[in-house]
């Protein structure tokens, strides 16, 4: 046993070394992150929302969303039974907000994943290769860069019908160019480093350079970009749903606000119908932004020192 362990540590494989280094890096990262109070707050809020989104089917149950057998009377102000009052169908607004977190977070993450995947790939390709491929990719990127999300979402909703996937696609398709630009810049910087040249000299091909050297180095920036982008995606989802382009049978925060507005909640003073989903949107967007900033700060020492 003792021999085993000692011999194991004595003849550490490169893989183990790598993992040990990664563990250290994560620990350092966390240590730095912890110093950022706002980042911690964002993380806490975010965990809360993610947790509620995961648990809501068991805690609240789907029957709370029934419009034909609602638990209460329509448009009741907050009470002991319904902490945030009821909506136009008699459902608890609190339950709607909890269920809405599922939709908003799903859209936020899915749309971000699409845009990060597309943006990362195109960014690395455009940075790594030069010449016509790079030029072509950049022109396409520029073209998408100027495409307004909302207009595209409206057009897509018209063509594909109103559904969550339409919204996800619309956001994903319009949000990737910034990532692509960012990743390309980082790729250029990384590839200018001497060890890349060495890797090439040792026979490293395109794939090797891109996947082994460039990708790990752009990941941090991609991570920071992701957290910032989720907030934007959630806001866009709410806007699109608020415009009535979402699926009305899915209780997202945006569609709840839209329903409240359709009901005339603003001039009727029904704050409990319109404020909670609005505050939820603001909180989640804020939480993601704080996390993103904190990560950025950790990864970029220049930001940290300030």
């Amino acid at each position: 046993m003792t021999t085993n362990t000692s011999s194991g540590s004595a003849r550490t494989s490169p893989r183990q070394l790598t993992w040990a280094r990664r563990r250290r890096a994560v620990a350092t990262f966390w240590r730095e992150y912890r110093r950022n109070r706002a980042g911690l707050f964002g993380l806490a809020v975010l965990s809360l929302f993610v947790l509620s989104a995961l648990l809501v089917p068991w805690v609240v149950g789907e029957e709370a969303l029934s419009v034909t057998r609602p638990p209460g009377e329509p448009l009741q102000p907050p009470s002991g039974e319904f902490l945030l009052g009821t909506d136009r169908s008699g459902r608890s607004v609190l339950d709607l907000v909890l269920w809405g977190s599922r939709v908003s977070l799903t859209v936020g993450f899915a749309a971000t994943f699409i845009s990060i995947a597309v943006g990362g790939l195109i960014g690395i390709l455009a940075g790594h290769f030069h010449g016509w491929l790079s030029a072509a990719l950049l022109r396409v990127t520029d073209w998408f860069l100027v495409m307004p999300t909302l207009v595209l979402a409206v057009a897509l909703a018209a063509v594909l019908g109103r559904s969550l996937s339409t919204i996800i696609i619309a956001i994903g398709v319009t949000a990737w160019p910034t990532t692509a630009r960012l990743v390309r810049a980082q790729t250029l910087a990384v590839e200018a480093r001497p060890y890349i040249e060495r890797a090439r000299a040792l026979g490293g091909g395109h794939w090797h350079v891109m996947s082994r050297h460039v990708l790990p180095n752009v990941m941090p920036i991609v991570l920071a970009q992701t957290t910032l982008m989720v907030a934007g995606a959630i806001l866009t989802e709410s806007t699109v749903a608020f415009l009535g382009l979402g699926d009305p049978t899915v209780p997202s925060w945006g569609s709840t606000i839209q329903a409240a507005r359709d009901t005339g909640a603003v001039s009727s003073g029904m704050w409990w119908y319109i404020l909670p989903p609005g505050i939820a949107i603001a909180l989640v967007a804020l939480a993601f932004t704080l996390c993103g900033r904190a990560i950025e700060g950790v990864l970029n020492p220049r930001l940290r020192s300030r």
Partner: protein
Amino acid sequence: MVRSRDSHARTTPEWRVGRRRRRAVAGVVSILGLLAALLVGGASAQAAPAEGSAGEEKVLTIAVSQEVDSLSPFLAVRLITTSLGRLMYDFLTNYDPKTGESIPALAEKWETSEDGLTWTYTIRETNWSDGQPVTAEDARWTFDTMMKDEAAATANGNFVENFESVTAPDPRTLVIKLKAPQATMLALDVPILPKHKWENAGDFAKFNNDKEFPVVGNGPWILSEHDVNNSITLVPNKDFWRGAPKFDKLVFRYITDPDAQVEALKAGEVSFVSGLTPAQARSLEGADNITVNKAKGKRFQAITLNPGAKLQDGTEFGDGNKALKDPVVREALVRTIDREAIYKTAYGGFGEANGGYIPSRYSDYHWEPSDAEAVGFDVAKANEILDAAGYAKGADGIRAKDGLKLSFRFNVHANNPQYIQAAEMMREWAKEAGMELKVLPVSEVGALLDAGTYDILTTGWSVNPDPDYILGINRCSGLPAKVGGPYLSDAYYCNPEYDKLYAAQLAELDRAKRAEIVKQMQEILYKDNIFVVWGYADQLEAFRSDVIGSMTPQPDPGGNFNGQDGYWSWWSATPAGEESNEDSGGTTGNTGLVVGVGAAALAALGGAFLVARRRGGATADDRE
């Protein structure tokens, strides 16, 4: 021909009417802005200076949001412009607000020949607002132009379809000869225009009557100013034969946001607001100096079930779910609709659940099923008849027979929150009977209808005092002649028995007998379960009682003020404190609004959006 669809704002189906304004602008606004609005709104709700009572000039300000399509009565089909037409020009006859029967207007009397084919009207001796006399020649020219010029027939062409000839043998006599008897000769809702101003107007398809202000007319109000999308101002016609209006000015002020309209009413910036939501109406009921009017609905809300779209020659087209051809399936579906619950929840209790085609406010023509006849809410019965007919539930809980799944696309007008809410409810009920409704909000259903690519869609028509038009849309002859061709209705309904009765009621000049036939027609329509009426939502409107002392609703009592089939409300409106010896004092009214028109922001997107929508229509509803 597509145009015949929107022939009348009075009978405009919702799917032809523009997108709701709010959606447009509103959306882009950030949510935070909205929250701010809430706070500001709450604050401003307190202040309530009465406008009009202070100065010497009494102004009646009405909040509107629908854009003007055209000020030319030949072209105008929207509620706002057809209503303006009623204020600006006199019609041959009016509807008595109390009885709904035709009473003299520009025609002071009339007579008809034995065979009902010749109608002779005596034109009242009055003047146009520029001093020229109003003559029978003006009326003749108006009708004749509509008969000969297709552009001039855009809005009201259906009234003259059956005209053989129109002549004016002398300045006081108008003679109309018909091809066949027509029961609607005292319900010709056509503004009579001044020939001397109009005959040189040029191309009627392009002339919008907005070059010269004030616009020469002979109605109770003269249109003096049109500040596009800002305000429309009218001044009283002091010489109006029925008596001059009592306010000094009538202003239609554009406020596109419904919540902002209500705030403006609370603040006294406007005196009249229509199209309230149930929640708004409830909150205004307690407000000082504000009277809320809940008028019986002039409009019915309904769904149509696609019984298999077909052309006049019987050729079927489209891809409607064939299961809906089975009367059992249709009955089962209708049995899953709880009309009472829809009006209780979605319409906040402001409405009447009723399966009759003609709204109950028209009591003489209205028909409704007896308890024995009613296809009422009964999910157990729905399950029972579907079981008996062999539609068995599959693993997913959805019934099917011979590969036909009872899964239906349900296209709902996205701009109508109540429809959406009702659709959500219907979806859950249908599920309990093993049927699936896929709720698909759409901005307009016209393209789906033209292509026959729908299963179920929402609809709503506003019904005239005379039921001829609304009955006429469901004739077999109304079916399109070719795919994509003009189609008046939205149900692909065709029943020869119904058609026979339609002809009979049109030729029946005795009102009571005609009403009997009209009721039989509604019974047939009801039993076929293709055009499924839910009921009639109340028209909710509110006005400042410290500005408007009294005005006449239509019908009186219990009717609406805005969007009347006549000029009664704004003509009779009396400033508060001056209503001492008024003859009619309706204090409650309502509005039903054919809701307006696209919003400014979307207008920009509008073009591209509509194009995309139209093109994408067919694919859109194939999707889940």
